[in-house]
């Protein structure tokens, strides 16, 4: 029966680790914005060079 006690200890430790991770993620602001991040990674990155002329105009100002 000692094994039961051991398993309880292990399961509680794992549960506590998960609780800790939850609290950490909450504190670090991961739930602040649940809308933007999943969209952000879907946006295609286009090279900025496409509008060189525009940038030059800006830089000369």
């Amino acid at each position: 029966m000692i094994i039961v006690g051991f398993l309880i200890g292990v399961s509680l430790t794992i549960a506590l680790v998960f609780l800790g991770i939850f609290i950490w993620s909450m504190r670090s602001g991961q739930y602040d914005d649940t809308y933007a991040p999943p969209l952000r990674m879907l946006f295609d990155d286009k090279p900025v060079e496409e509008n060189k002329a525009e940038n030059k105009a800006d830089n000369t100002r």
Partner: protein
Amino acid sequence: MESVTTTNLAPVTNKLACYHCGQPCEDEVLKVDDKSFCCLGCKTVFEILSENNLGDYYKLQSAPGQQQLRPSTNFEFLDNEEVRQKLIEFESEGYAKVTLTVPAIHCASCLWLLENLYRINRNIFRTEVNFPRKRVTLFFNPKGIDLKGVVQLLDKIGYPPHITLNAQEEQQRPSYNKKLLLKLGVAAFAFGNIMLLSFPEYLGLAETEQQFKWIFSLLNIALSLPVVFYSAWDYFTSAWKSFRIRQINLDVPLAIGIAALFLRSLYDIYMGTGPGYLDSLAGLLFFLLTGRWFQNLTYENLAFDRDYKAFFPLAVSVESDQGISTSLVVNLQKDHVMLVRNQEIVPADSDLLDEEALVDYSFVTGEARPVLRRRGEHVYAGGRIVGKPARLMVTRRVSQGHLTSLWNNEVFRKSDESRYKRMIDRTATRFTWVILSLAVGSAIFWYLNDASQVWLVVSSILIVACPCALALSAPFTYGNMLRVFGNHHFYLKNADVIERMAQVDGIVFDKTGTITNGSAATVSFKGQLNDGEQELIRALTAGSAHPLSTLIHRHLEGVPQGAVTLNGFNEVPGAGVEGMVNGHHVRIGSGAWLGMEEITTDVQSTRVYASIDGIPKGYFAIGSRQRPGLSELLQKLGKKSLALLSGDNTGDRERMSAIFPQETELRFNQGPQEKLDYIRQQQDNGRHVMMIGDGLNDSGALKQSHVGVAVTDDTGFFTPSCDAILQGSQLPALSEFLQLARQASTIVKLCFIISFLYNVVGLSFAISGHLTPLVAAILMPASSITVVSFTSAAVWFVSRNFQRPRK
């Protein structure tokens, strides 16, 4: 011009939808390639974006923009060093950081565009958007672009920031929900683990395994400590507070129940009589906090408490011996001379120094037509200068002005709670007394029969009677209903507003901005005019600052333009304007002045007649646009619509009496104070009044009313002090909203009945002394789950026919 129709659009509208903002193109259609735009602003934004290869903006979501009809804002005040200091968070050579609130953020396209700002201007390194807060953090090179430049760029692409110097206003709100979620997480963790550790004992432990009982029990106690002392702490403090002011709210029986559960469990475990009720305790907290979290899912990004200061400029040009400089409005002193330009708001009560000035007081009184002020006359704060810039001498500091005094009205100091007691708290009061008397009754009964059972029975009663289901019914019903309303662009400040809406038996409307569509006016010409003649009139109206001239001028903007000469321009106040254009004598103005016959059949509009070289040509009909679907709404409301309060003059009486039912009282020339008084008078007659206004000059009335609803066309830009914000296009659905609110109230009552039935079952176990931990562990979550699923299903059922509107 208005006859442009296409067949490939939705059948509901026969007008073109703007490619940028999706609004129907009402008066004019501007074309670029094959795309149509409703206004110059929308078209400009499109052009800027396509020039910079940012056309993807329109691919991520169709018509993602906001209509650009608002007047352009003057951002000169950002040059003021004091303002700059307050806004910029970090600055070093070649690197600066600023965070701005941009209310227009609402979709994936917004996000994409704002985070690609660096492509429009190289001096912006990076942008970060916080979507739910609608805040944008910009990192830029202050050498290449200054703060004003950044803000102007945002404004140019249709995302004007709302700038406030009150940093607290923006930073105050975030932490509460976070704390609640943490508490919920802890309760969920404890709930799952305690349940797991309680199972062996429910299922029965063999004689040889009795030593485990102690391990399980001790672990359970350890796990329940954070639940009681962290997750449940708010219930204790709230119960204590309400106890101190001798009132019983719902948290009192909840706190008693939680305490009874915990203490009884400790006792049972200590005496070795049972495993205790700790799983029920953790489950209870888990459900309660879930309900609370659900109810708090309101609209964090909308501020419902903005006061007049939000509409005042932050800074104003001040004239002194050293010339003109910008000064913060809060620093304005008596006798300062300020220069207020066209379309700017006068920030403080002052006297006019110039010869004359046109002031539009619609912000203060609702009267739409500008009034003429002459030298030395008083101009109240809140007036908007139209036409020529005006020099004004401050007579009173901002905080002591005329408009401010309205906001200092006692109405604004009362908190909502003191005027209104929630249904749930009334029920809780009764509930608590019944439970307490039951407990005392059974205590006496058991004392006479079996004194050893008294303490057990009493604690059992307190445990099982804990009004968990009662506490869940309102948050879930109202929370679900809030979401339904939100889908229809009707945003409530909190869930309590629904309950108050259910009681409404009288509705009072404001006119300007509510019944009629604020700034938008329709201009149409009745008669015959060729292009050349239109051009003559356009040239003539260019010289006049009168609002009607401006409207006609804008209406004729699309006319092909050639070289024109204007001589002998003459404006006769109250009559019209005339002049020699390209050798033709052009006159527009009132019929009497032109010697033309006034047409009286058309009561819908203001008429401006036109004649060229003495030949009458016809008239321009100018009407404020009435919101569509209004008469159907008023018919549905019937006797409920109590009155129309308008700050305007009686000119619109006929038109208004045509659409309002006969019983509705029509009052004109109503100032802000009169509107407030009218609401109060109706309330004294025992009515529950809902006030529907635009939130500007009627904010006092909105606050005084039982439910104050502000109608607005751009939900993001304008969020005044009120209980609810309704998008203009959704006004016709008002009667449905009211009906849903009443149904929500009924659903809550049905939940009370369910909760009551569970309590009867539970109490019969408790009073007879049979409430074992296992019975409690089944009964308590079961009642919570029944209530939650019933209310979700019921809300879905009543709102199933209420379809989602198009964007």
